[in-house]
């Protein structure tokens, strides 16, 4: 592997995190803890590279991945909002379905359940040393900021987390706003997944490996604000780039590196709840 300077490598690593976190920001601000980011990202990664492979076009691959992931997000939203399922269980269903389905399909198409490398794919377009998704993630963060803070939809969506009843008493339907939030999170996760698989030129089973969970932490650490997300994602990118380096330098077992996202998410969850309890007691 080419050794990139730490900073440049952090910028590359943070891209899928930032995209998924931006998508998750919509569901989070509407008052829903969306654990399905992981599964939607995984399906996006698989669909993008498969469709790019069969169509011979990266753009078509990404567009079809968007379609596939939106479908999954719609199923999740329908089961949660219209059938009134428990969000955590339906999110779990989404993750298990994505994990199983990508393996089932890859086995059907390529006869194995392992890593599938696609040598026929073209490289992602590069601009100033970074691939195109890096800039896309920044642009789409800006779009998210605009939608959330400067459109009626965004303002009403954000008010949902505070008090859904007020909104419905004004004649708006919270369910619709949340459904759209699920779809938007699916849209961003598809791009996050596409970034992962297309920049690697391969599909690895469960290749998101906890990035959906880290994206949730990025949302919390970023204080649920777009600029905060950018900073938090960059910190994670930097930490990840450093741990890659450390793994090589100090021979840390790969399993421990893989366990880090989960342990980190756990610590942030604990810290956040301890802090908010502490604040409550001060009052």
């Amino acid at each position, binding site marked *: 592997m080419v050794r990139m300077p730490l900073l440049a490598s952090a910028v590359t690593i943070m891209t899928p995190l930032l995209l998924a976190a931006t998508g998750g920001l919509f569901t989070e601000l509407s008052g829903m*803890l969306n*654990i399905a980011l992981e599964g939607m990202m995984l399906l996006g990664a698989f669909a993008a590279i498969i469709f790019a492979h069969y169509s011979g076009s990266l753009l078509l691959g990404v567009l079809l991945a968007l379609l596939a992931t939106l479908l999954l997000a719609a*199923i999740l939203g329908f*089961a949660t909002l219209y*059938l*009134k*399922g*428990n969000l*955590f*269980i*339906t999110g*779990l*269903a*989404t993750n*298990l*379905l994505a*994990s*199983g*389905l990508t*393996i*089932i399909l890859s*086995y*059907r198409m390529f006869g194995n*359940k392992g890593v599938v490398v696609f040598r026929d794919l073209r490289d992602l377009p590069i601009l100033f040393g970074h691939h195109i998704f890096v800039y896309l993630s920044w642009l789409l963060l800006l779009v998210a900021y605009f939608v959330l803070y400067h459109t009626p939809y965004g303002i009403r969506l954000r008010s949902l987390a505070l008090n859904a009843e007020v909104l419905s008493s004004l004649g708006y339907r919270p369910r619709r706003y949340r459904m759209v939030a699920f779809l938007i999170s699916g849209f961003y996760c598809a791009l996050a997944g596409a970034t992962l698989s297309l920049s690697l030129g391969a599909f690895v089973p469960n290749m998101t490996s*906890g990035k959906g*969970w880290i994206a949730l932490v990025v949302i919390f650490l970023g204080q649920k604000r777009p600029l905060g997300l950018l900073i938090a994602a960059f910190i994670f990118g930097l930490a990840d780039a450093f741990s890659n380096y450390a793994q090589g330098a100090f021979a840390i*077992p790969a*399993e*421990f590196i*893989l*366990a880090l996202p*989960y*342990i980190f*998410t*756990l610590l942030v*969850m*604990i810290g956040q*709840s*301890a802090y908010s*309890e502490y604040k409550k007691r001060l009052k």
Partner: protein
Amino acid sequence: MGKKGDILALLFVIAVAILAVIVAILFLSKQPMLTLHYFFLGPLKNTYYIGNMLNLMSGLILGALGFSIAMQSGSFNLGGEGQIYAGAFIATVTSLYLGKLGFLALLLGALFSGGVAAFSGLLKLKWKTNELITTFLISYALVLIVNYLVGGPFLDPETNLIATRKIAPQWRLLRILEPSNLNIGLLYALIITLLVHLYLNKTRGGYELRMVGLNPKFARYGGIRVERYLLWPMFLSGALHGLAGGIAVYGTYWATVKEFSIGMGWNALAVALIAHFRPWAIVPAALFFAYLEAGSRNAMLHSDVTFEIISIVQAVIFFLITSSLLQRERRRE
């Protein structure tokens, strides 16, 4: 809707799940009729296959009991995967070092997993940290750490598998339908089902536990020490998961094989959801899921689909089943 409506809704969910598998096989397999044959009839072919299918029930029953006991007390334990795997690992390696005291190892495995789950209960008690998420995250980290231990420091160099050494023959559970894997562990699981049923429904502790689950404020008002029921059911829940893993090792595998129990926790969760957390209903639900699991293993072995096809069943059940649960809760209010 009364009880009858509940059962109808459940049958509907199961029917949709089975339909989804059939559609998936028709889509995926190049010889769909043969695959369907292996999937649905394979597990019942002869005593060997039937024994192996029944053997899958032990872990499903114990795991589902574990999830249910936490659920009845109002807590979610979504860490079954890691608690089963870590419990199995602790039970295996302690047995290797305890010598004559090897029988204690199963208990140690259960204690360890119980402690892990109780830790999430403690966090909830102290800081209101969402136990749904902490159990899940700890479990994922545990799986990876045990993977490292099994493949590294505790690897048995004498096999081709990535596995620990095997436990001593005198600790292995009695096989009851040779040559299948069925062993006395299933009997233990059934006895524990009865015990959990009696505990929940016939003792003061079980009554208090359920009261806390139904309405913690009311329970506190009634003089129940609610804090106790944030910790104790979580401990029992983790311990039952750990025991599920331990019994899988002691009865079936005799060693902790890398990732041998992956999926068992989710399947047990599906069983608990189908049984609606009632101990006696867990047994038939476990039989149903063992049948599906055996079917998908069989279809993989003899035909051209992979084992992960069972994740479609899981997904359908998880997508649909809590919707009916929620309706039940609204009725209660």
